[in-house]
């Protein structure tokens, strides 16, 4: 038994690999239909059903192109069918002379298809922006509108319908048109444009990043799809010899949908199977009478539950798939669009970013990013989670439009270009969460990358011109060689989703490479990799730079990977660049270590906050030096904060609403640090105003858990009612006891001497002794100003010289 099965398998294999047999069968079939219909060899009813099957195949195929291959949800396909039916009928009945009707028939059909294709534009345009449910509504409305419009045109009979077509549709015609449709759509799908369509389904964003012009692709898919729907409509009209608007209502669209999903989305064989099964079943179940339309949907529901993708979902009959054997490439006419010769001089600046800033609502994700990247460098971007690294990439690659700033690539301003255009200029990227085209094979993933490089158009693809064949062979060969170059050739025919993790990352890089970039952006390429894999990746990146003359920018968390790989590194934290330089500098940069690695130590570290319009401090980030145990003790003994006084001409002003303790701070827009506002409230509850001179800083020190102390810096901003949290640092200290303390550092003057009550001012130096009084201007860089134990309420103080002094 097994031997017999094996033999059968072999025969089947041999059969399947002979694609030309398909043409043989088609030819034989065509001849057969001529003979059959000429001599009436089969029952008329069977012949009718066969013709219905053919028309339904065309319908299912055409809808599958949009719904299955492109992953959209178009629900009103009968509308296109109607346009084609009416169009063809008008021509054959009212325009073409009746004695030539048989010769004019194909033209009428084609004309109907063209009209339907034109109507498709109406539906395609909304599809650029919307998907899924909304597109369903648009297409549904289109269907209804077409029906309504037709009901109101008396020229075509209005609701009564249109009569008068001759029965021009014969079995041979149906066979021929069906064969043509299968051939054309299959060719469309297995071509460059078809891969573009699939990329829209799989991951539109990734497709655009690989250079696919998604608008063009969507338009083409809709147009081709409706053309064939129109053709089917024309055939249908000339079979029934009567059409009315009711023929093409939502029920018809539903039928077509059922055929597509029953047979299987994304599969030519699926559409054929779905159409055949549905049509035949409907006829076969006629014996059930009324109950057949009850049984039919029940079967459909059961099928959906147990095989949600349909019978042939995403799989394909082997004869329809193109040969995977690479044919010899004739060097006669290269079809690849030539890459522009390098404009950048080796060593010139390939990427110039200036002042790039991006806000999500009120939150600043990236602040004033600057970069000059020389060609041929490997640059690293590091920073903790949420520091803006991926935002940076998204801005460069065109996925976001920045709030401010500019990006220049190779001298061209690319700031507001769409992603596919940016890709065609020479920037390619990978994604943090790996966005491969999962249901496509590895080699197809790479071939999508070559979308822009290919010269032929959709018509050439559908007709399988010689130019197409040569070009496609070249594309395939290049894709394979690229895969082999990076040692994933053996997975070439494997579906991308089945690849092991490391290979998926690698495939994403190879795919990006296929777009022939000059600059490659890698977003966390080493995520989840063990040390061995990381090492291999490092080598790979070096190869990219050396062999492909690429400039590479890498985002990573993996410190050793970045340090070992990159020539220059820029460090982001909360959207702001806190360090830039060579790895050795960065490695030992205090701020970077403490900011990024979450380590706490004796010194403060600074990271700047995320407030709108705040100027960065004049002299760079703050480092206020070590807080020794003595200082800490002194801090611990201090009580709640104190306000400063004016003295200078220029002031940055912070108003804090102090009316009710516990009330939300008004007039202050928070930077979103939840716990910090508590202290500010503590301060605010006692004071009307805190004034700081321009360029000065105000520090808050707060006790955190496990006896740590957090230091928060405030600074004034351009706009009156913003403050910025600019410095936050944690360090361990066992001596702090009290909660808040105000510490001003900078040029601001401190309280005047004539204050009520003793005011112990403590400086770090003073802390060695006891509290010492200090008055007058502070010019030391470490001043601690504190307040007596009882906070003095503003209302209790008399106004002195019109100022609300509380000191």
């Amino acid at each position, binding site marked *: 038994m097994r031997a017999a099965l094996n033999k059968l398998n072999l025969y089947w294999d041999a059969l399947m690999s002979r694609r030309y047999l398909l043409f043989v069968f088609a030819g034989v079939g065509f001849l057969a239909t001529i003979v059959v219909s000429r001599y009436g060899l089969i029952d008329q009813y069977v012949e009718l059903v066969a013709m219905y099957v053919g028309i339904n195949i065309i319908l299912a195929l055409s809808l599958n192109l949009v719904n299955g291959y492109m992953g959209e949800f178009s629900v009103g396909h009968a509308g296109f069918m109607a346009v084609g039916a009416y169009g063809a009928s008008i021509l054959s009945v009212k325009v073409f002379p009746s004695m030539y009707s048989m010769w004019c028939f194909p033209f009428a059909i084609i004309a109907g298809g063209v009209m339907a294709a034109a109507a498709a534009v109406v539906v395609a345009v909304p599809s650029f922006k919307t998907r899924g449910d909304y597109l369903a509504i648009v297409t549904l409305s289109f269907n209804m509108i077409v029906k309504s419009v037709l009901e109101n045109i008396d020229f075509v009979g209005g609701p009564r319908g249109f009569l008068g077509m001759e029965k021009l549709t014969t079995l041979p015609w149906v066979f021929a048109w069906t064969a043509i449709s299968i051939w054309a759509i299959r060719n469309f799908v297995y071509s460059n444009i078809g891969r573009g369509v699939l990329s829209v389904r799989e991951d539109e964003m990734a497709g655009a990043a690989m250079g696919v012009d998604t608008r063009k692709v969507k338009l083409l898919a809709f147009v081709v799809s409706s053309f064939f729907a129109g053709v089917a409509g024309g055939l249908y009209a000339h079979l029934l010899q009567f059409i009315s608007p009711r023929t093409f209502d939502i029920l018809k669209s539903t039928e077509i949908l059922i055929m597509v999903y029953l047979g299987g989305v994304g599969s030519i064989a699926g559409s054929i199977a779905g159409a055949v099964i549905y049509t035949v079943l409907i006829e076969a179940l006629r014996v059930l009478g009324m109950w057949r339309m009850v049984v039919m949907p029940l079967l459909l529901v059961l099928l959906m539950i147990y095989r949600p993708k349909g019978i042939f979902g995403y799989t394909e009959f082997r004869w329809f798939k193109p040969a995977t054997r690479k044919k010899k490439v004739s060097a006669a006419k290269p079809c690849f669009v030539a890459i522009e010769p390098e404009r950048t001089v080796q060593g010139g600046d390939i990427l110039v970013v200036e002042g790039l800033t991006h806000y999500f609502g009120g939150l600043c994700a990236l602040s004033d990013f600057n970069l000059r990247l020389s060609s041929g460098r490997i640059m690293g971007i590091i920073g903790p989670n949420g520091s803006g690294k991926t935002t940076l990439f998204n801005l460069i690659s065109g996925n976001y439009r920045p709030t401010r700033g500019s990006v220049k690539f190779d001298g061209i301003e690319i700031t507001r270009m769409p992603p596919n255009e940016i890709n065609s200029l020479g920037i390619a990227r990978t994604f943090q969460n790996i966005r491969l085209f999962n249901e496509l094979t590895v080699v197809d993933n790479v071939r999508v990358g070559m979308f822009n490089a290919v010269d032929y158009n959709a018509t050439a693809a559908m007709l399988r011109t010689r130019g197409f064949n040569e070009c496609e062979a070249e594309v395939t060969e290049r894709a394979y060689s690229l895969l082999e170059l990076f040692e994933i050739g053996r997975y070439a025919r494997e579906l991308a989703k089945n690849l092991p993790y490391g290979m998926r990352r690698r495939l994403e890089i190879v795919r990006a490479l296929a777009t022939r970039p000059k600059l490659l952006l890698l977003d966390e390429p080493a995520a989840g990799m063990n040390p061995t894999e990381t090492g291999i990746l490092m080598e790979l990146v070096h190869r990219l730079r050396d062999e492909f003359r690429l400039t590479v920018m890498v985002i990573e968390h993996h410190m050793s990977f970045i340090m070992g790989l990159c020539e220059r590194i820029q460090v982001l934290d909360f959207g702001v660049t806190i360090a830039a330089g060579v790895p050795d500098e960065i490695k030992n940069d205090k701020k970077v270590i403490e900011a990024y690695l*979450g380590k706490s130590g004796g010194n403060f570290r600074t990271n700047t906050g995320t407030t709108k319009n705040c100027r960065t401090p004049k002299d760079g980030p703050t480092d206020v030096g070590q807080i020794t145990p003595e200082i800490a003790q002194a801090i611990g003994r201090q009580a709640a904060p104190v306000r400063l006084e004016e003295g200078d001409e220029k002031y940055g002003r912070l108003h804090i609403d102090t009316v009710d303790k*516990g009330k939300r701070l008004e007039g202050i827009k928070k930077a*979103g640090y939840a716990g910090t506002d508590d202290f500010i409230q503590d301060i605010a509850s006692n004071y009307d105003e805190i004034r700081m001179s321009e360029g000065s800083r105000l520090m808050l020190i707060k006790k*955190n858990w496990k006896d740590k102390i957090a230091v928060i810096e405030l600074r004034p901003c351009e706009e009156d009612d913003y403050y910025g949290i600019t410095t936050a640092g944690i360090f361990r200290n066992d001596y702090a006891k009290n909660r808040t303390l105000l510490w001003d550092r900078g040029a601001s003057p401190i309280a005047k001497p004539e204050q009520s009550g003793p005011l112990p001012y403590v400086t770090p130096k003073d802390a060695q002794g006891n509290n010492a009084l200090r008055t007058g201007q502070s010019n030391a860089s470490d001043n601690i100003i504190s307040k007596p134990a009882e906070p003095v309420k503003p209302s209790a103080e008399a106004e002195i010289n019109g100022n609300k002094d509380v000191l």
Partner: protein
Amino acid sequence: MAMEKLFEQRHSEVPVLLSIKNLAVSYGNIRAVRGISFNVRQGQIAALIGANGAGKSSLLRAVSGMIPYEGEICYKGINLKDVAAHKLVSLGITHVPEGRGIFGNLTVRENLTLGTWCRRDGLEIIKKDYDHVVELFPRLGERMGQLSGTLSGGEQQMLAIGRALMSRGDMILLDEPSMGLSPVLADEIFGIIDEINKHGVTILLVEQNAYMALQAAGYGCVMENGEITLDGTGAELIENPRVRQAYLGV
């Protein structure tokens, strides 16, 4: 290995609340967790640290029944495989998922109320819990009627923890509590975790921020590529040079 035994010996008298044996999780042909075993004892803060993609989140998701797994997970002696995901809360396990899992279209108060879904005690006691949460997180108290989707990252994390507290469970699973938060804020969160633990709640947390997690943890495990490679007390692990090298960048 030896460390683990030592740890076990030292703490063997404290009852085991959660026991994991030979847990394996796969996504397609990616093996996220490859046969790990460890115990979390009552009253502990146990921390799982490791790089991105090491399998930590998968472990927590397996415990709370969100994904299929092989192996055995027992809570208070009950095999969790037989328990439906939504029954875990009534058993005493609350999971604060990665990214907080806040329902952005509900108000702060409603999110907290959602945490009480499985509770059967009276309204009075529940009201006391609201007050307790507000005491712990005054910021939340001011925003009870605000849509939680508009809260900042830190406030959302506080809300997530507050909500977990509202279910009065014995054990809270925390997935990356410090993610996306500034160091100051993350530190505060850990302070709160510490305080909650002092009230008797056992905590199993998963973190990329090794330093903070190990500071808080009584028991820590290091995960690499789906396996536990080191374990011990938090203090021991912080000092362990291998840990420091891999995760603290020293």
